[in-house]
């Protein structure tokens, strides 16, 4: 029996938690999320190098919340998601039991936000180098080239909203896209509708995206839409000194004003 299974079984048995979000084997050689409620189910839990999904998005799903007090197997992205969600008052301190899987397979438990913050301070939370390169390429383009690049990508979008469902920060009960009184974002997946949706999505995640990449992973059309929000990370850091998902009591950089904020983006 793995350490993970032992630990989760113990947590369930002594009622520290009522359910645990982890990984299990899916169809073919895929890995998928699983929601463990008892000792029997706990035997399904696995942990290996392919377990990379950011599970934090499930914490706010209505069906999962109903299960009671939650535990979660977290990677760095999930820890940051939890911090960001905390700063947006979606998770309270002590409400979620967090097990972090270290690179060597050992587990670290976090029961409060302070310890997660301390851990993140000394952890690499940056964007992967392949993605850095893609961003550098995008930034090297002229505005027009970039426009064409994205239009070409968005042409592929079928508006399945898998990206929205995968994103831990897309927890609104009613997304702007679903608002029809009035319908600011056209529903149909045509050029304008797609552009509107993606611009809206990028705006809503600016300074909140924790660079987990779930949106792009989820996309059936292979649109690298995570780059759109990644590209906003460094300017927000440079301008306002803020990075999403690092502190539970952070205030959102784009909703606050400090007298010494830079205003160099105003033309």
């Amino acid at each position: 029996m793995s350490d993970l299974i032992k630990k989760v079984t113990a947590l369930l048995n002594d009622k520290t938690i009522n359910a645990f979000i982890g990984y299990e084997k899916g169809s073919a050689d895929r890995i998928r999320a699983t929601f463990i409620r008892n000792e029997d189910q706990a035997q399904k839990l696995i942990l290996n190098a392919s377990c990379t999904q950011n599970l934090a998005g499930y914490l706010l799903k209505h069906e999962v919340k109903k299960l009671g007090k939650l535990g979660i197997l977290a990677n760095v992205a999930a820890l940051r998601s939890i911090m960001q969600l905390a700063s947006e008052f979606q998770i309270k301190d002590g409400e979620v039991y967090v097990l972090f899987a270290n690179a060597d397979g050992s587990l670290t438990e976090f029961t409060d936000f302070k310890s997660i913050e301390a851990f993140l301070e000394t952890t690499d939370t940056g964007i992967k180098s392949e993605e850095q390169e893609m961003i550098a390429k995008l930034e090297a383009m002229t505005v027009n080239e970039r426009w064409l690049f994205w239009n070409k990508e968005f042409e592929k979008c079928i508006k399945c909203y898998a990206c929205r469902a995968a994103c831990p920060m897309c927890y609104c009960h009613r997304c702007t896209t679903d608002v029809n009184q009035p319908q600011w974002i056209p529903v149909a997946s045509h050029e304008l509708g797609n552009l509107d949706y993606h611009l809206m999505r990028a705006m809503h995640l600016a300074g909140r995206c924790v660079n987990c990449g779930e949106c792009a992973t989820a996309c059936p059309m292979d649109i690298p839409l995570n780059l759109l929000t990644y590209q906003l990370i460094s300017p927000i850091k440079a301008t306002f000194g803020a990075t999403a998902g690092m502190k539970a009591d952070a205030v959102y950089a784009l909703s606050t004003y400090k007298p010494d904020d830079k205003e160099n983006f105003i033309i």
Partner: protein
Amino acid sequence: MSRIGVFVCHCGENISATVNCEKVAKITGELKGVEFSTDYKYMCSYPGQTLIKEAIKEHKLDGVVVAACSPRMHEPTFRKACAEAGLNPFLCEMSNIREHCSWVHPKDDLTTEKAQDLVRVMVEKVKKNKALNSIKVPVTKTALVIGGGIAGIQAALDIANCGHKVIMVERQPSIGGHMSQLSETFPTLDCSQCILTPRMVEVAQHPNITLHTYSEVESVDGFIGNFKVKIRKRSKSIDEHLCTGCGLCTTKCPQKKIPNEFERGLGFRPAIYVPFPQAVPNKPVIDREHCTYYIKGKCKICEIVCPTKAIRFDQEDEVIDVAVGAIVMATGFDVLKTDYFPEYGYGKYADVIDGLAFERLASASGPTQGEIRRPSDGKIPKKIVFVACAGSRDPAKGIEYCSKICCMYTAKHAMLYKHKVHDGIPYVFYMDIRAGGKNYEEFVRRTIVEDETQYIRGRVSTIYEKNGKLIVKGADTLMGAQPVEIEADMVVLATAGVANHGAEELAQTVHISYDPYKFFAEAHPKLKPVETNTAGIFLAGACQAPKDIPESVAAASGAAVKVAALFSNDELTRDPLVAVVNRSAPPVYSQCVGCFLCQSVCPYQAIEREEIKNRNGEVIKTLARVNEGLCQGCGTCVALCRTKAIDIHGYSNQQVYTEIMALLND
């Protein structure tokens, strides 16, 4: 089906010169839902308003569009007219075909077409308008006055004499402000203390005024009529009820060489002190920074000598909460510090002093009992150079404005000097003499003609010491920039008036705006000079810009009237054009997800948290709620809310969308 009336105004010829108003009325009259349309020369006039009222009754209109000037100009006028005719005023909208059309375009068919478009957009909007009711908020009839200089004193007395309660907060141990340091005041030369101190006493004794000295405002929440304020009362280290103000402690304190701030460093004071003999309250405080007991842990001589055992070394700061309906800012000004003038040797040479120090030298209660003696050796100076505009009107020093009071007090200083030292020669370097004010020019004339003051037009470039004299070098620009050199015994700098230290932080604490120089900003430079942009907060005196006493007092009385007017009602009525967070049936309760990003973005602290509880009292959802009293309808939250849970009454998403669609669907 709507029954909308369209009323197109010619605005004399302001609109009709370039727009065919008759045509606009005719074409828009054919729009779906428009029941009646007409044009008229002056819609805002009595006959114009009557026309609207009668049309509402006759055609049973359920919406009105007035196509005329800017809503900032006449929206209240037309809404009132509609209300008088029985139509909810918020079903009336204005279409601005003057500033947005006739004034900016030539006479042309296209201009008329644009006017038609603007009207059409508003017709569509009005179809979505809802009848709204004005908001009523209660008023706490107590005013807070921050700062106890002459402006604060005047405002407090005026408000208190109207029968309202006043809480005054002053950060110094005594009220009085700069005026208490002045010797005699221009343009009448009456003694500053003689006209000020009776008012200070009146403040202390007024049954409606509560005075907190040595205190500062720590936080301000709430809104007009309903502010909640925390005041930090710094520890004075004495029990004010026991202290009789006998002053024995101040004579026995071993610390005797602390530079006296009130005397501008020209004298000394002990660590337990009353800032000046006429101080109100006339009870000492211990300056803990300099007190031997707080530095070394022993002394307590004051405690031993105090006959009433009033000394309290362990006293702590106290923070009190007060509720007030209005706030008057009266925190005054400051003057530029020494380090701004290396070229004048200010701070380096003892005999280069500033105007306030000169006031103390000239004051009968000052360190020299009113004799003009120079600080270095106590000799009577035979030549004094007064430098006006020291720092003012000098972009190089970062101050482009005129400090306004310096021309006058410099003339006063020269005059006082001449009255006291008959054989002395006063020189004044000036840029221009600005003596606008009742009897001001005459006053300056007297200084020049009767008191033989040498006015030299030009700036001083350097001052240095040589053989016990101060060599003042400058240029006389009226003599073709001829160099001037004066061997003076003393130099007085009329240092620029600047915002008081801490003004910026205070403005942020009370949530009012300030200008680039950190002076508090008025709502309108001409028509709202004592109001701020924050409703319920007013300005008095030199915290707004350098002001002399008459101006400070006038502004203070103006602010007091505004407060009294506010307090004349038990409730305030406000336009209901505020934000609202939607609510729906359980289990959703609202589209709001409680992220509270709107709370941090709201510039008016108008967003509150509301907990939805189940029958067992457990919180099942926390939602945003807009405080209607605080919300100014700016719409910032609407732009931020990702889930579109917030909307603004009168400017809803639906209305704005409809307007845009009306244009696009042309």
